[in-house]
């Protein structure tokens, strides 16, 4: 402890970002370093797990050292070492897990394994000192789409999830189909600003008989069918209209489910999280919908929406104060579920 504060060194390597951060008391970011591999994966049209793992092992030390230096700390100054141990790509996760365990062991610091999704939700605590559970959380990213009741800092109840593709996956696939390339999220966001969201009527990503679940593969197929049909009939396709109409369809269903759940479960606060919550249409649309429902919306800055280690440090703090510690046999758990310990 330095001056009664708890400083946690956090490491995140679950996908294609090598990241480390030092976070104070779960709220204040003393440093946050992110090395992104996006350029390397772009030529393959998506993340190549083996290449991601290779890049992580090459960069991890530099990223950790930079995070410590920027925070003005050494490893002996921090109170604990936290690391994402799932969900994610197993080979990628293992790099961070092995590094964090060795660091914690050699420096004689407590080790805290953190769930990546719980990390995303906790990103909200960093910029919103007033946010405290209970609240409704919507996590939307390249690998995950979850509607969650956050009952307490480390108590989660999933009420809805995608039954097929994650929302971010649909963005990537549609972006590829209309020639925008990878990563799909920011590309569609930009293209949609030039397009007409009402140009094409795509179905909403709903699941019948399941109030809060999502399905994005039907929507993705509808976009592909539209493109095929246009090609066969020689109809001109405006990529920006497709992007805007697809995006509207995704945003609509996310808004509807979230607002309905907030009312049903009596939640006054709603927090967005995950890479897709950097999408400008979702941020604007959700803000209005949530305000109209008489609730308050919390959204992290875009840099805290995409993968980073500050959010892992924020989540780890609450585990730390509850006395949660991981053993030296901590393993990567690629399919780790929210709330699983």
């Amino acid at each position, binding site marked *: 402890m330095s001056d009664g504060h708890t400083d946690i060194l956090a490491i995140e390597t679950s996908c294609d970002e090598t990241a480390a951060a030092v976070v104070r008391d779960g709220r204040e970011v003393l440093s946050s370093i992110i090395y992104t591999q996006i350029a390397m994966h772009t030529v393959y049209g998506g993340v190549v797990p083996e290449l991601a793992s290779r890049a992580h092992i090459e960069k991890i*030390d530099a990223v950790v050292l930079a995070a410590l230096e920027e925070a003005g700390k050494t490893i002996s100054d921090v109170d604990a070492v936290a690391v994402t141990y799932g969900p994610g790509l197993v080979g990628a996760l293992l790099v961070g897990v092995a590094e964090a365990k060795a660091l914690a062991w050699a420096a004689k610091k407590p080790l805290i394994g953190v769930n990546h999704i719980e990390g995303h939700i906790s990103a909200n605590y960093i910029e919103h000192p007033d946010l405290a559970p209970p609240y409704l959380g919507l996590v939307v990213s390249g690998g995950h789409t979850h509607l969650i009741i956050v009952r307490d800092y480390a108590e989660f109840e999933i009420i809805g999830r995608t039954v097929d593709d994650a929302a971010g996956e649909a963005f990537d696939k549609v972006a590829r189909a209309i020639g925008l390339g990878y990563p799909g999220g920011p590309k569609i966001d930009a293209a949609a600003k030039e397009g007409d969201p009402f140009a094409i009527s795509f179905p909403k990503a709903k699941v019948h008989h399941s109030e809060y679940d999502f399905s994005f593969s039907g929507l993705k197929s509808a976009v592909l069918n539209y493109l095929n049909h246009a090609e066969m009939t020689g109809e001109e396709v405006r990529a920006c209209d497709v992007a805007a109409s697809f995006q509207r369809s995704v945003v609509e269903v996310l808004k509807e489910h979230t607002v309905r759940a907030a009312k049903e479960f009596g939640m006054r606060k709603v927090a967005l999280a995950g890479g897709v919550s950097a999408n400008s249409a979702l941020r604007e649309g959700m803000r209005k919908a949530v305000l109209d429902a008489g609730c308050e919306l919390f959204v992290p800055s875009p840099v805290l929406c995409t993968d980073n280690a500050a959010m892992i440090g924020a989540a780890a703090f609450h585990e730390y104060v509850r006395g949660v510690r991981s053993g030296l046999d901590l393993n990567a758990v690629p399919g780790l579920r929210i709330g699983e310990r």
Partner: protein
Amino acid sequence: MKLIALDSSGLVASVAILEDDVLRAEYTVNYRKTHSQTLLPMLDEIADMTGLDLKTVDAVAVSSGPGSFTGLRIGSATAKGLCLALQIPVVEVPTLAALAYNLYGADGWICPMMDARRQQVYNGIYHFENGEMLTDVSERPVGVAELAAELNERKPSRVIFLGDGVPVYRDMLTELLDQGIPRLFAPPSCSHQRAASVAALGKLYYERGLMIKGSEHAPVYLRKSQAEREREAKKAMET
């Protein structure tokens, strides 16, 4: 001088502590659990058992490849984390050289082979001269048939095979090798990766000044990822 040595390049997880010329401890396990779950608890146990003061450790020697991509990275990330926290250097020890060192002083050619799948092995060829290990063929991935043909052509006085490729390709080698080449297959006591050998070679390298910063260390895979190979093949087809 004190060294911690790690090897998680193949089926076994192995850790050792070397102090000057004394091997304080070695712990090797060949079991189903992943190296991620075993390697550090094993190191913790031998450090505890030998009362190792981490502040007195001079370097971490790590088996640097080739081997299982994931296994190598678990060893590398562990070495890097230790070195970062303790502010000490890494000594990279090629996996095959460390394997060959298991047979220190043996006569003839030492031929370690690790299963690299698709009828290939990771292999190098070594021999001992006046107590020093010399490299005849540097580490590479090679087809088992190709390796046998090479040996048939060069007619060593004797060849000793070891490594996890042996049980997989022993029959094939026996069939392909000329009858006239005397061959031995190492017993289980020295046929697999041992952190003690990584430590012994690591100490030699350290004394020659062959250590690097942990941040500069990464495994030597000897093979590109499948995605890269496929992409290059596709490009070659197009041109």
